[in-house]
């Protein structure tokens, strides 16, 4: 099957298994996702749900020694990334797709000036001379709101929020078609988070970049995404547009997530947490992975794995009780 031409990225039935200490870790278990051109998709889920693994699978940067198998299809502009040879992937990585990591403190090379780090990618991917690349780097720094005279400074001279801006400048330097941002603001304070989110949103619009935003924070998703996929135990349990998910959360896990976060603008007496813990990825339950924690689970849920239900529009949920 070829990728839909309206979608920049289509993932079909992606499965990733790691092996560790003789055990098989089912990190991603059949993920299907679509990202329209120019869209912004939010991947929401808790620690260990497999969000980062999905991102790494797209870029094909899964750790070799621990990865046992990767199956499925990842179409990026009608090309299956899982079948693309390494040399071409290197052109895609950093050129067409780039990634922003969670921790700006470790994502930068401490002994290279920020200007050189931005210019490096431009030089490598766009066949530009060093001087041209440097000019471009200065322009990128200004785009992310850092003045040009700081181009020859080292990462330690920047604060956390500024570092994350530099990381974003590096990621966007080659005008990628797709930016994957893995928890880009988790390590930052709220006022700085607001600045960075604002920056990402503006750049996305001005450069027409598509975005995959990985986060555990539903609020951040609401800020910049137009599509949402909720990930639980390596599966997409619910996906749809922002309105579909936020106005009509349907899967019990999504409903649970909304109930568990304290809201700034309304005061509730008691939060309703989701009982229990996420399943052990080395030993997933037989039926629905969420059944042991689900308030609506029946006997059948624990035995049979649920199928995907279409709820109209682009709204899908993985549950048999709807």
């Amino acid at each position: 099957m070829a990728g839909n031409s309206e979608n920049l990225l289509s993932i079909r039935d992606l499965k990733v298994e790691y092996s560790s200490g003789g055990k098989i870790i089912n990190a991603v278990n059949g993920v299907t996702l679509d990202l329209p051109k120019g869209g912004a998709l939010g991947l929401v889920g808790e620690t260990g749900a497999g969000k980062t693994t999905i991102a790494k699978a797209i870029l094909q940067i899964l750790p070799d020694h621990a990865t046992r198998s990767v199956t499925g299809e990842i179409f990026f502009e009608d090309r299956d990334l899982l079948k693309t040879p390494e040399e071409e992937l290197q052109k895609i990585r950093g050129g067409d797709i780039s990634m922003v990591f969670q921790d700006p403190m470790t994502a930068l090379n401490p002994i290279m000036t920020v200007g050189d780090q931005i210019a490096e990618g431009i030089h490598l991917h766009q066949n530009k001379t060093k001087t041209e690349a440097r000019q471009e780097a200065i322009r990128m720094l200004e785009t992310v709101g850092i003045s040009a005279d700081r181009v020859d400074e080292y990462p330690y001279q920047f604060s956390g929020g500024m570092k994350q801006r530099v990381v974003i400048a590096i990621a966007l330097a080659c005008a990628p078609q797709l930016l994957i941002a893995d928890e880009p603001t988790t390590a930052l304070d709220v006022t700085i988070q607001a600045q960075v989110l604002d920056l990402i949103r503006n750049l996305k619009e001005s450069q027409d970049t598509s975005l995959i935003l990985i986060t555990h924070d539903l609020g951040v998703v609401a800020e910049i995404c137009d599509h949402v996929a909720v990930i639980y135990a390596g599966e997409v349990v619910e996906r749809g547009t922002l309105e579909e998910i936020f106005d009509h959360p349907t899967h019990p896990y999504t409903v649970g997530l909304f109930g568990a976060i304290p809201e700034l603008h309304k005061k509730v007496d008691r939060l309703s947490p989701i009982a229990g813990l996420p399943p052990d990825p080395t030993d997933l339950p037989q039926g629905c992975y969420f059944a042991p924690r689900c308030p609506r689970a029946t006997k059948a849920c624990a035995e049979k794995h649920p199928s995907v239900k279409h709820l109209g529009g682009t709204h899908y949920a993985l549950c048999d009780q709807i």
Partner: protein
Amino acid sequence: MALIEIEHLKKYFPSSRGTVHAVDDVTFNIEEGSTMGLVGESGCGKSTLGRTIIHLLESTDGVIRFNGEDVTHPSKHKLRELRENMQIIFQDPYSSLNPRMTVMDTIMEPLKLSKKFSKAELQKEADKMMDLAGIEKRLRMSYPHELDGGRRQRVGIARALALNPKFIVCDEPVSALDVSIQAQILNLLMDLQHERKLTYMFVTHDLSVVRHISSHICVMYLGQMVETSETDELFERPMHPYTKALLSAIPTTDIHNRTERILLKGEITSPINPKPGCRFAARCPYADEQCAQPVGLHEVTPGHFVSCCHVKEINDL
């Protein structure tokens, strides 16, 4: 009655670049049985303030009163007694438990040290604490590395509650946890407060959490208090420009009622040898020459204190 009264408390640290004014002239009270939310960004001195109040750090200047009694410089004997009444729950459940002690050992340690219990009572008391904090009995002999974040935090809570304290400083107790676990821990803390008439000081950077759990809120910026009032009042009528920006910066899940965002320029600086005057002035959209004058917390409307010389103009009062 106020259980904790803090007056002009200061905590300075020497550093190679000058004196760090981590907590600089802070005054507030915490009523018995209530929760004071202490909000601010990293580096604003909120954790230092919490630790200074419970005497994990020694204060530089000022007065700390507990139950009406001046306990700023306690005697050794008094300090022991104080520590049984004032406890702390830490942010990181991964580093606040000794990796070589079992759940049982960790919870029993404060009981043992208090020397109030016989051996048989120790076991019973520790079991009671585990029940209270919702830790399964089968985990008694487990080590911290075998537990998930939520359970570890429960162990930390059980340890803090073991001596039956009156006052607990919660230092970002849920910020390292996932949302679904976070809600479990918040509910547990609220239930415990109800059952045991606890007084909390809840230190956090997460305003949504603080709104949920606190009755009063203090907002800190660079070692100073910029605004304090009752929770609902503060959230409905924030008056200090920093509080306003902080509130507007929080991403909300309400996708239909977007409020206009106030973007602050720059970032928080470090409180080393600060100049007199408003410390927020460098990032404040309303700052002018007047802001270089020292300004203190003053009551703007009943019970609502703000430290800003332009508060009247900004809020049309």
